[in-house]
């Protein structure tokens, strides 16, 4: 081809032709792709012995942290990062038996008052922050006071702290955190990452919001640098000797831990395959499936405490104001098939308002609605919706129509199409709109939807209060517009019960009532998904769907 054109000519023309030849190669891209797309021959990094110290681990995360201050953040993702830089007073970790346990962190021991309103911590004396400040009771007080300081503009931390009263320094190594009313969720909350103890020197030096760009904690990794929206570099803290043995004692094995922001889901998988990332977080289910079939990657899917991803059902807007219609919706949807067909089987189908690892999860509530389209049809018949020749149900000349509003980026677009196809089979019609989060939030509060989109990562079953409390209808997350003063009271009561078993029993009751009242169509359990080459080892999981990097290795 090139020979044909390259008649004798001046030198500049030769150079032009070389460029043209490159261009022509580009045109051959399609057949090449077809040949390589399914190819499996690829040189992967040679795996040396497992668990060797040193090296850099780069984690691809899906969004930009709003701040690096765990006390101020409103993004759950920030906690994944903050747990590498900060220590909580007490860790709450999964046990090998599938349960959970409290493990000393910066506090050696602790006591809880019988009414769950005063928490007293005895602190370690051998801890030093990354900036050289000695850890003691003033640091604990400074951290908690920082979260409630209006200048901090704290989001999740403030929400998680609840009825905080004050932190009192009893002596340099004893501190008392008290609440204006009982707050049984606190032990779980303080461990979840928002309350990593901050260096009081750094808090004073950088100020309430400046700390978010200059985080200083006592954890296994120290903040090195942050290129906004791009990458966060952390380095090993060589002095770290206060790790709980469950996470690996002594300093971190890695030299460097990097969080690389790659918003494109497929981009994270590409970068993982190209060796630019060692961990890809929350890849697309299709990519997770492909990564497993390739045999080159380990998949760590970490269940989280919380409310499964699903569609809140608005109990005030017709036709979902009728409980029979709401029940029919839940009976008509086959979550197991959804997970298998749409999510490639990488997640777990959900049938409840809480995930199974959440304390207070009710097995009974999960069995209320087994997939049963006949039952759905019968319920709709009973509610007076008559199926026409076209399969659409009508009543008084109105179609059985649902207005579905999703917020963009929630991951529910495709699964909702599946849900709609199942609802159509029993006689519903539906319109689905996807709105930016800020817009959707307004639509939900105004009650314009029959079905919305939701899902919540939490630390304690008290999270139910966030989305079922009647106070949260006008401006909060009660997108089901569920108004049940009894449930408000029950959840409040649960949070005043210090005894774990008694508390769980109340939440089990609440969960069952919520499912009976059919205010939520659960789809699949919330979790963190981490994909990595087999060479990455030593990760530990947390109860909020995350991993810790204390003893992680890359070679």
């Amino acid at each position: 081809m090139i020979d044909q054109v390259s008649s004798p000519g001046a030198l500049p023309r030769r150079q032009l032709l070389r460029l043209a030849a490159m261009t022509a190669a580009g045109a051959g891209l399609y057949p090449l792709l077809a040949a390589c797309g399914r190819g499996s021959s690829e040189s992967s990094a040679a795996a040396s012995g497992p668990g060797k110290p040193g090296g850099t681990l780069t984690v691809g995360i899906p969004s930009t942290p709003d701040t690096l201050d765990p006390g101020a953040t409103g993004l759950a993702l920030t906690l994944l990062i903050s747990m590498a830089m900060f220590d909580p007073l007490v860790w709450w970790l999964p046990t090998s038996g599938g349960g959970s346990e409290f493990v000393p962190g910066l506090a050696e021991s602790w006591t809880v008052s019988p009414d769950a309103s005063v928490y007293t911590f005895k602190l370690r004396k051998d801890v030093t922050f990354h900036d050289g400040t000695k850890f003691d009771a003033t640091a604990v007080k400074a951290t908690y006071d920082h979260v409630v300081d209006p200048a901090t503009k704290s989001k999740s931390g403030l929400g998680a702290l609840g009825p905080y009263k004050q932190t009192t320094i009893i002596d340099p190594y004893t501190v008392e955190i008290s609440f204006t009313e009982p707050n049984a969720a606190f032990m779980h909350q303080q461990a979840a990452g928002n309350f990593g103890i901050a260096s009081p020197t750094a808090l004073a030096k950088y100020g309430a919001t400046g700390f978010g760009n200059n985080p200083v904690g006592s954890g296994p990794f120290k903040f090195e640098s942050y290129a906004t929206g791009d990458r966060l570099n952390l380095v090993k803290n060589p002095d770290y000797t206060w790790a709980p043995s469950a996470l690996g004692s002594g300093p971190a094995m890695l030299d460097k831990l990097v969080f690389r922001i790659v918003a494109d889901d497929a981009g994270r998988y590409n970068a993982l395959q190209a060796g630019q990332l060692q961990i890809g977080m929350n890849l697309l289910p299709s990519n997770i499936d492909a990564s497993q079939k390739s045999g080159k990657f380990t998949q760590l899917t970490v269940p989280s405490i919380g409310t499964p991803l699903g569609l809140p059902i608005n109990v005030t807007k017709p036709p979902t104001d009728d409980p029979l219609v709401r029940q029919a919706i839940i009976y008509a949807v086959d979550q197991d098939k959804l997970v298998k067909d749409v999510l490639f089987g990488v997640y777990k189908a959900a049938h409840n308002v809480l995930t199974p690892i959440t304390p207070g999860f009710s097995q009974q509530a999960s069995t209320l609605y087994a997939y049963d389209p006949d039952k759905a049809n019968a319920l709709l018949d009973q509610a007076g919706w008559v199926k026409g020749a076209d399969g659409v149900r009508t009543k008084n000349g109105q179609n059985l129509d649902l207005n579905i509003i999703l917020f963009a980026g929630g991951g529910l677009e495709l699964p909702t199409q599946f849900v709609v196809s199942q609802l159509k089979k029993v006689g519903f019609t539906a319109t689905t709109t996807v709105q930016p989060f800020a817009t959707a939030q307004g639509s939900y509060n105004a009650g314009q939807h029959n079905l919305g989109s939701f899902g919540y990562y939490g630390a304690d079953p008290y999270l139910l209060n966030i989305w079922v409390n009647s106070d949260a209808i006008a401006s909060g997350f009660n997108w089901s517009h569920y108004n049940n003063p009894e449930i408000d009271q029950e959840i409040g009561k649960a949070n005043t019960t210090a005894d774990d078993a008694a508390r769980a029993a109340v939440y089990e009751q609440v969960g069952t009532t919520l499912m009976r009242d059919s205010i939520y169509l659960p789809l699949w359990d919330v979790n963190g998904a981490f994909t990595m080459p087999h060479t990455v080892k030593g990760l530990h999981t947390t109860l909020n769907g995350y991993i810790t990097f204390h003893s992680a290795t890359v070679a």
Partner: protein
Amino acid sequence: MTFVLRRLASMVPVLIGITLVAFLLIHLIPGDPAKVILFGSNATPEQIDQLRTQLRLDQPLWRQYLDFLGQLLHGDLGTSYLTQNSVAHELFSRAPSTLVLTASALLVAIAVGVPLGLVAGTRPNSAFDKVARAVSFLGVAVPYFFLALVMVLLFSVNLGWLPAIDDGTVAGLVIPAVSLGWGYAAILTRLVRGRIIDEYRSEYVKSARARGCPEWRVLLRHALRNSSIPAITTIGLQFGNILTGAAITEVIFGRAGLGSFLATSITNKNIPVVQGAVVVIGIGYVLINLVVDVIVGAVDPRTRIAVGAS
């Protein structure tokens, strides 16, 4: 010089227009920034109202716009709702990445498009011309983001030659720049090819040849020079398009640039960031067009005189 000054003066209404459009667009999108800001903090309706007042979102729109303009005149772009950092800091830390990407894509467009068009135009209907036309057709027909994904699968995932996401190196820039610039290279190829064919038919080329002027001189000195004005104008206009494409390219390659930042900020209704970003990008666009006009003036004195005399 007067030419440049006149052009600068004519930018003022354009810039005011940009600020107005930026302001109206983000304010007219439904959604309450105060609720987004307080997301997760279990804020009461009173706290949300209080924040709205604090952010002056309860003021009438015209008032908010005047506030925004006033701030802008002081060089203050406000504070990001999300990070509490200054918008100027957030934008300028990301601007270099976008500039580098846009400039590289333009470079690809010019380096590929102009020579290809030149050679194809001098030999219309030759085999080379047919290939060039096919390539340019593909360039226009295939969306840049699709090309980007295909290139990543081929060169990063399968062959391992180039990074799949930005790593700060030149190698990491190759796929984004080529995929983004390719379509514009195709447009330039077609444009230059057509112009060269036209110029070759013109009288002055015939007379130059008749005088015995060497062929390379006919091409470069006469035909190319006269073809370059529409090409340069097109390149200037394409800068804006490339900037738009950069937003998606940035997302695909995990580049922390202005485009991807603007897109997420719109979703979050982060008003100060959206306004700031639109103004900064708008100024950049206006400046590039000024540069293009100056270059066109330099290449073709006729335009310079015409504007200067009017």
